[in-house]
């Protein structure tokens, strides 16, 4: 669970992963991370170790995914950088920056890119499979349990309570991203207005997402393009 990807919860250890709480690359552009990286390519030989096989990638990603309650990204950083030493911290942040630009869950994109660099598409699928298969089984068991007991009043009540917490977790994730908008190239006030218009359109007026992204998003990107003129 990365900043927006899931960023559903605060990082367990924010010092280890500043990219998560403030989402610098997302909010202010990847330039925020540039202090960390020289213009070398990802997976240069500076990482102390390398995975030996797609099977090893699958095992390590399964292990880290199963530890990630409310956020896999800080765990991924800890396991890949500190425990396995397959990536340097700078390489991790570079991968994350690219993962955030591409559509799809950040942590899933990051896994795919890591595996792909190591063993091509087989490595990518091994990392993706490790990241989602075991948690998928856990979630499936919970879903079966839910379908079975949903009619029970206590269970239904408990799930309403859990739903309220889920809503609160996601709201707080969104609210934590707001201060970073001040550093946006569009200017803080303009970025805030865009965020509010998105909320009004999506949450209140229920405008289809594709119109919102194409219309308001397109306008915002064109404006940012002009502002970023050298």
């Amino acid at each position, binding site marked *: 669970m990365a900043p927006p990807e899931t960023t559903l919860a605060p990082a367990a250890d924010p010092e280890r992963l500043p990219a998560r709480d403030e989402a610098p690359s997302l909010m202010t552009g990847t330039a925020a991370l540039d202090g960390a990286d020289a213009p070398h390519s990802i997976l240069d030989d500076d990482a102390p170790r390398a995975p030996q096989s797609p099977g090893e990638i699958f095992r390590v990603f399964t292990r880290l995914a199963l530890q990630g309650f409310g956020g896999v990204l800080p765990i991924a950083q800890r396991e890949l950088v500190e425990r396995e030493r397959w990536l340097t911290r700078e390489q991790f942040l*570079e991968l994350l920056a690219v993962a955030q630009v*591409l559509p799809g*869950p950040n942590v899933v994109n990051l896994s795919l890119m890591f595996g792909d660099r190591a063993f091509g598409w087989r490595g990518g699928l091994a990392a993706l499979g490790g990241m989602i298969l075991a948690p998928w089984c856990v979630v499936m068991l919970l879903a079966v349990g839910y379908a079975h007991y949903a009619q029970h009043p206590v269970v239904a009540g408990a799930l309403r309570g859990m*739903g309220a917490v889920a809503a609160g977790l996601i709201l707080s994730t969104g*609210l934590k991203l707001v201060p970073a908008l001040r550093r946006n190239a569009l200017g803080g006030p303009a970025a805030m207005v865009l965020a509010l218009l998105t909320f009004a359109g999506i*949450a209140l007026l229920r405008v289809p997402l594709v119109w919102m992204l194409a219309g308001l998003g397109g306008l915002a990107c064109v404006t940012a393009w002009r502002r970023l003129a050298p």
Partner: protein
Amino acid sequence: MTPAATVPVAAGDWGAIFAQYLLLSLLSIGGAIGTAPEMHRFLVEQHHWMTNEQFSASVAIAQAAPGPNLLFVAVLGWGLGGFFGMCVTMTGILLPSTTLTLAAARWGEARRSTRGVQAFVMGMAPLTVGLVVSTGYILGMTSYGNPWLVATMVATVAVCLRFKLSPLWLIAAGGLVGAFLG
């Protein structure tokens, strides 16, 4: 909020569901959770395949489990049509973004400091914030009628903004509150 009666998913609807998730995969800029409002619009409001309650519970279940929060898509699919439904929604949400990532990661890496990519990141960032807040608001729709649940939601936001606490504890506490007062 009394949930409307749900309509079962007909065999002919699966194509539309798959197409919707393929599209949402490409629209999930900044993460899967930002597309939850669109899934809610499609599944709950437009087609009545699922109630507000089922939708919120699905996301809550996924958050109580380990792993990427993308898996709420699997729980929603399970609610629509069991194992088959889960495979339809998960394949839909993963296929385009996975293909694009494998194809475009190197391209993106080489250009991530260019003006075009920077403008895209900066331009989309405010929308991402709006989408995440919208998701929270929509998931809260099952709570707004019950003051205890509203209080639970507000308390969660307050705790999260101030402390670093594992969401697992908060979800467990919410389950307890809901079991007695929900």
